[in-house]
Structure formats: structure tokens, C-alpha cells
């Protein structure tokens, strides 16, 4: 059943399970299930659904900032303003670029790292630690470190590039490069984290499959492509989901390093929302932007979760 069908059925009060449950010995799990779900549902209601509702309502009103501001209903005007705001469009575009730049490379790197260090040697243990470390450092601290790394002239990157006789661009002050610097920081931070999941996933690839393939004359690349990667599909779906979540929700580095600048070159959706709400006090616009972003996020999440579902069902 598609989500639409389920929700439609629910809304129309069509019984989604056959009426026979009324006559059958009603499983005692019915009440139990809801009791078990209650704590979670309370939490979700308070901090997810209620806010979404509030945001949806807020998006239909405008409250001019100021003591005399009167809230008035404006319907979809906020949405029009958001979609017409070049900063929002830039932020949306940036998020797409950011997604492409962070999700795929982090995941691929994670897999590569995992493949390279999967055996438990002392050397590998050290390398694993080094690669995983960045995720233990709060993004705020990493961003400050990278502020130095990116510093023009005397910063780490420029200093060593100068020794090689190359001069780098203004890493976070140049509108063309800034977003990619943020991408670099993100990949550095997350690849090692995803690597951990791949290491585990690799251990679970059935040995016999690999051996069978070797016996059949497959070389390393073919083994990777035909045996290992398919076996890793659930892990990949999992890692991609986490990566997508990170991509959309982690903006600490923008807050600390660039504040969306220069000229919105590093503006991301969540940061845009944050700015509209807290700097421009345009709650209506912030709410509308949130609704739009949330809708987009839902589409993405449902898509990737279907992937995970499919993956796990296949190997069950």
C-alpha cells in the first residue's frame, strides 16, 4: 500500500484492517501496542507534530516586526515571498550542490577506507582511529580549526601550498570556492564515521561467496563489484540515509565559519530558516520556508527509507 493510500484510508475512516478482527479473538497486543508506543508518541507529538502544525499555521500569517505589529492572515503570500527570495533560491541550490558534494564522496570514501583497513592489524587500528576522529570533534570546534586552515596567506592550506609553489584561492571568502570548502570540511568530518558501518557490513559478507568467486577466477575488482557491493546494499542504504539527514540538518559550520556568506554563497536551507526567524524576525517567511524544506525532506526520506526497507526485506 502506498503512503497516500494508507493516509487516505485513514482520513476516510475506512477500516485499514479487515473487520474480522472484531470477531476474532482480539489479540491482547492491541492495547499493549499502543501502550508501548505511547511514550514515543508523546515525545513526537510535543516536539515534532505540534511544531509542524504551528509552523504550518504560522506560514499563513505575517507579523510585522515591531511593537505595533499586527498579525494578519496572508494565505500563501509568504510562500510566494520565499520562493521569490533570491537568498532562498540560492540556499536551495546550494543544498543540492552540497548534497552532491558530500553524500556521494563521503559514502564512497567510507567504503574505500573500510575496504582498505578491514583487517585487524595494528596499523589498521591506528588508521581507523585517525579516520574516525573528526566525528568526535564537535562541528563547532572543527569549524574553528578550519577557519585557521582556510586563512588566506598564513593558514595551513596556503602555507603548505606556498611551499609547493602554488597559491590557493580565498577558501571561504571567495564566492565560487566557499561552498566547496564547506563540502571539504563535511567530508573530512563524516567519512570516518560512515566507514565504521562499512567495516561492520564487510565482516558480514559471507565468506563462502567471496571464496566461490575467487575459485571462479574473479579478480579483486570483479569480486568487489559482483559479490561485495551487492552484499553491502543494506549498509549503503543506511549510510546514505544518515548522510542525507546530516546534509540537511547540520549547519553548525555555516553558523561558525561563514554565516551564509559571502553573498549567500554558503547559505543552506536550514541556515536560511534560522536567519529569517532570528535575525529578520520574519516568522511567516521562516515558517513558509520550513514547510517547503520539510516537504522536500519528506520526499527524500521516504525514498531512501524505501531503499532500506527493500534491502532488509531482501536479505531477511
Amino acid at each position, binding site marked *: 500500500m502506498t*503512503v497516500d493510500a*494508507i493516509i487516505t484510508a485513514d482520513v476516510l475512516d475506512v477500516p485499514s*484492517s479487515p473487520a474480522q478482527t472484531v470477531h476474532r479473538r482480539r489479540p491482547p*497486543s*492491541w492495547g499493549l*501496542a499502543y501502550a*508501548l*508506543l505511547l*511514550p*514515543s508518541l*508523546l*515525545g*513526537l507529538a*510535543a*516536539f*515534532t507534530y*505540534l511544531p509542524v502544525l*504551528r*509552523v504550518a499555521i*504560522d506560514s499563513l500569517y505575517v507579523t510585522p516586526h515591531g511593537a505595533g505589529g499586527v498579525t494578519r492572515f496572508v494565505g500563501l503570500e509568504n510562500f510566494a515571498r520565499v520562493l521569490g527570495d533570491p537568498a532562498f533560491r540560492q540556499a536551495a541550490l546550494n543544498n543540492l550542490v552540497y548534497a552532491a558534494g558530500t553524500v556521494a564522496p563521503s559514502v564512497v570514501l567510507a567504503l574505500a577506507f573500510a575496504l*582498505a583497513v578491514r583487517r585487524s592489524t595494528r596499523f589498521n*587500528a*591506528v*588508521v*581507523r582511529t*585517525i579516520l574516525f*576522529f*573528526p566525528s*568526535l*570533534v*564537535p562541528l*563547532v*570546534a*572543527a569549524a*574553528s*580549526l578550519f*577557519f*585557521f586552515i582556510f586563512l588566506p596567506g598564513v593558514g*595551513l592550506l*596556503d*602555507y*603548505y601550498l606556498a611551499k609547493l609553489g602554488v597559491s590557493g584561492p580565498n577558501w571561504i571568502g571567495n564566492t565560487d570556492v566557499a561552498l566547496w570548502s564547506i563540502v571539504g570540511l563535511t567530508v*573530512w568530518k563524516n567519512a570516518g*564515521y560512515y566507514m565504521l558501518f562499512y567495516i*561492520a557490513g564487510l565482516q*558480514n559478507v559471507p565468506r563462502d561467496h567471496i571464496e566461490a568467486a575467487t575459485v571462479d577466477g574473479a579478480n579483486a575488482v570483479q569480486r568487489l563489484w559482483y559479490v561485495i557491493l551487492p552484499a553491502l546494499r*543494506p549498509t549503503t542504504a543506511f549510510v546514505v540515509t544518515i548522510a542525507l*539527514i546530516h546534509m*540537511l*540538518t547540520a*549547519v553548525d559550520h555555516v553558523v561558525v565559519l561563514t554565516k551564509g556568506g559571502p553573498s549567500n554563497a554558503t547559505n543552506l536551507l536550514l541556515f536560511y*530558516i*534560522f536567519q529569517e526567524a532570528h535575525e529578520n524576525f520574519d*516568522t511567516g517567511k*521562516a515558517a513558509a520556508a520550513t514547510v517547503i524544506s*520539510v516537504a522536500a*525532506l519528506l520526499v527524500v526520506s*521516504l525514498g531512501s527509507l524505501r531503499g532500506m526497507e527493500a534491502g*532488509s526485506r531482501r*536479505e531477511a
Partner: protein
Amino acid sequence: MRLDRHVGPALIAAAVATIAFVWATPFLWTLVAAFRPESAGSADMASLLPDFTPTLANFRLAFESGDFGLYYVNTIIVVVGVLGVQLVTISLAGYAFARLEFPGRDVLFYVFLVQLMLVPSALIVPNLRTTVDLGLYDTLAGVMAPYFASAFGTFLMRQTFRGIPRDFEEAAAIDGAPWWAIVWHVLLPMARPGLIAFAIVSVTAHWNEFLWPLMVINDPANHTLTIGLATFTKGAEGAKEWGVLAAGTLLVMAPLAIVFVAFQRRFVESFVFSGIKG
């Protein structure tokens, strides 16, 4: 053939070592810079070579800038508090979705999943209002509350439970065990790797959290590590004390580093045996 066997792995090892070095460079610099005098800047401040007499002045200043011990305690409280409640909610909910039949199960599950993308930071404005309404503003509990229910964890537990063959539970049920005994004695022990994997995800996420605590907490007595670090890595009108920044970052990272190195093998093993393939 013989060449392939030796050169290949050697090349890979070299590549790996290079990448590891590049990855570690920010930390190497932090280590060196934390001990370097002349905190504000000099032409060679990016050098990774310790060509100076080390000083502890930066650490002293870092300590003075923030009560790191307190920040550590606060962060641990938040992380452990969140995880503790999460483990309960996700186990219960995961069990309900994995093993129980009830009307509206699939709908409810998708409803849960909606939360995956709606992190509190995204809904910061209304969540702040809710937190205030609940009287939790400027408290650590307020920082923790939005995370008590975890759709991600529920999903994970559901997967993990589903992956456990029903025979064990059925055997226990035949023996007359009630549902909670089954969960506690049969399912959870078998799901332990999944729980550990989730714990790692949760702890890492909340250890690193910045935006939400920043908005909720004012009182310095409630500051977490991220807020504490952020305050002294900023300055409005100008310069930075790089050495102090490096020292502070080191102070934050060191305990984590030690813990991770000590428990590294355990972490990896737990992932190995978990259902964390999917």
C-alpha cells in the same frame, strides 16, 4: 602474479598512510599550535614542525576562559540522559512494530518516520516555544526532551527484532513467559549489537550538538561543551588567539580520544555482530 601480490598491497598501504596523514593534519596542527607561544599569529604559525620552546600558557588561558570540567559534566548528563530514555522508548516501540499486530500499524510507522527529517534544529522556533511552555527553558532537560522519542532508533530496533528468528520467543511463550519477560530476557540480549550501534550514533550526535543547546541554554552553569568551545572561538571585532583555541579544542578532544582508542576494538566488534547491515 607475484608482483601483484606484493606491489598491490604495498601501494594500497602507502595510499592509506598518505590519506591518514592528510586526515590527521588538522589534529597535528592543533597539537603543535596548542603549545606554541605567540598565540595571535606569525608568518610560520601554520608550521607543523615544533620549532619553538613549548609553553603551557595557552592551556592556562583556555582553562580560564571556560569551566571545562563543568561543560564536560553537562554534556555527559545530556548524552547519557538522552540515550537512557531513548533505549527504553525505541525498544518498546520497536518491539510493538516488529512483533505486534494492531490496526493502523503501518500508518503509524510512517508517521514515526516523519520525525527522521524533522530534527529539532529545523523546528527551532516552535520547539523553543514548546520548551518554554513546558518550563524547560534554560535547563539541560530542555536540551534533552525533544530527543526522547527517536524514529531512527525505533526503525533500527524494528529491523533488528525482525531479524531475530521467532523460535526463541515462541519457546519462551510456550513456557508461559509474559511479553515483557520475553523482551527483556530473549529479545534485548540478542539485539544488543543493534542497541550498541544506535548508542554510538546517538552519543556522537548529541555530543556534537550545537544549535539547539545554544538557543535553549543561557546560564553558564548549564553550558555544554559545544557552547563553551564556541564562546571562546569567537570574537566580534577581530583577532583570534589561535593557540588558546587549539588548546581548548585539545582539551575537548583528549578524553574522547582516549576513550575511543581504549574501546575501539569493542566498537568495531559490536558493529560486526549487529544487524547494522541494514
